[in-house]
């Protein structure tokens, strides 16, 4: 196959610039010494990073997001693994319907999910609580885990499990010693993707968060809606660094393309 010509290279360079521009601009702006958004910054200052420390609401929101993402991703994983083992192997009546149901949060517009959760939580009387928010996030992140765990369950070799059963291993032993180690990469990848999805979720959470359970994306969103000062840029920069660190770790452990495309490293 022929390699790319000069036009193709220029196209790719422009594309990369386009994809990275908003991220680089946010990082650049956060180092400004001035009180307004300017790019390129006229100097380098950590003023707006210190300002984060003076805004406990941002820090509180970040903790809530972190806690929410940790619990929601873990709970969704615990529920998704048995479901994936059931759906992923062999057919049974209702299998397609189950899979479609578990993947459906991806098909319903997020704004519809947001108001549906709000209506439900209000009628049940747990609107604005952390528990209510967590249950909603479990539903939202489930498809992401299920897809990756399903992919690894499908690749599972049933003969090893049958051999273990024939030799008298209990169900639990088979799962712990054979099934789990084999599908572990899929579980880890799914968990990370679920964590990130929950941590970044805005559209649903903006409806169901109360002032005391505001998550970081919601806090940033309402801040941007009111004023645009470099504070939200410095918070963003910290969030970007956090994501990049997580991304590099995942890439080492699992392969980023595998995580997001569901295919092997090329």
């Amino acid at each position, binding site marked *: 196959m022929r390699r790319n010509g000069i036009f193709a290279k220029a196209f790719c360079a422009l*594309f990369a610039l386009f994809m990275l521009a908003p991220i680089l601009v946010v990082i650049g702006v956060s180092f400004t010494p001035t009180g307004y958004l300017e790019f390129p910054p006229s100097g380098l200052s950590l003023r707006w990073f210190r300002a984060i420390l003076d805004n406990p609401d941002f820090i509180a929101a970040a903790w809530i997001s972190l806690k929410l993402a940790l619990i929601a991703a873990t709970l969704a994983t615990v529920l998704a693994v048995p479901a994936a083992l059931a759906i992923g192997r062999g057919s049974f009546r209702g299998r397609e319907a189950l899979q479609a149901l578990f993947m459906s949060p991806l098909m319903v517009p997020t704004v519809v999910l947001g108001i549906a959760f709000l209506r439900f939580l209000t009628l049940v009387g747990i609107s604005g609580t952390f528990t209510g928010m967590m249950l909603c996030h479990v539903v939202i992140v489930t498809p992401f885990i299920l897809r990756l765990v399903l992919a690894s369950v499908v690749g599972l070799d049933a003969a090893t499990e049958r051999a273990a059963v024939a030799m008298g291993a209990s169900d639990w032993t088979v799962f712990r010693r054979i099934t789990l180690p084999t599908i572990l990469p899929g579980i880890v990848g799914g968990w990370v993707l679920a964590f990130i999805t929950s941590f970044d979720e805005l559209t649903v959470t903006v409806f169901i968060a109360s002032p005391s359970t505001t998550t970081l994306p919601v806090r940033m969103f309402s801040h941007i809606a009111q004023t645009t000062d470099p504070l939200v840029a410095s918070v963003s920069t910290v969030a970007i660094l956090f994501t990049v660190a997580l991304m590099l770790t995942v890439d080492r452990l699992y392969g980023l393309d595998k995580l997001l495309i569901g295919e092997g490293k090329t």
Partner: protein
Amino acid sequence: MTMASTETLRETARPALPPAARKWLLSAPMLLLFALMLLVPLLMTLVLSFNSFDFYKGIGGDLSLANYAEVLGDGYFYEIFGRTFGIALATTLICAAIGVPLAWFLNRMTPFWRSVMVLVVLGPLLISVVVRTLGWAIILGNKGVLNGALMDLGLIERPIRLMYTSGGIVLALVHVMLPYMVLAVWAALQRADASAEAAAESLGARPWTVFRRVILPQAMPGVLSGSLIVFALSASAFATPAIIGGRRVKVAATAVHDEFMNTLNWPLGAAIAMILLVAIMAVMLTWTRLVEARVGKEYA
């Protein structure tokens, strides 16, 4: 003989439970959660969209089509829905126009540059949409990066208005949606037969001809499935139109948010959301039908 003895061993070793029942049992916790936390809330919202609303008495228990009549009978909402689907269509077309050549170039790169580009494509997916849209707000403002650069270059005299316009929303949405399109097209190209391209080249076809006659037809299934995702996500996008469009340039999702959080007319908001849901579903179903008819079932 051996087969039979293993079977007996199996049956004595564990309590008999039919395989289908085991599978339902394994899925039961998730099913319970989804029934309670997804199906019930969606049904409640459907009912809510038929309820009446009074600014003093709140949400009424009666059912009528009044909210739907209000949305469908008001030019203001037509404008919002028209804008929503216009933006989604423009975003989809631009994403396809950029995504197809990019996926092709991606295929022809050296492994090192390919993995760099894959990181550039996928990386932004992991960064919050709020952060990325904030970046676009800084770039697109009247005193923003883009207008500043264009004026410095002498290409324009006065700043172009990009913030609070549909054009600005499309630009930022293209950025959010491009990864989905590139991934879909790239997957299609990887499934395709690479020797067709090599054959065309060895027969002396110029790059543009190769692209038009070989790559584009091979990429088509990916473009069609990618378009479906991009259109559906753009039509229901919230964060980007809310930040770039502000209060003035409303789309369906921001209108729903407005009814729920500011006007507090939940039934009307629910009706708008239901119409959005049905409209997106209708477009997706029609699209899938058309694709099935054109390129065969395997690609749909």
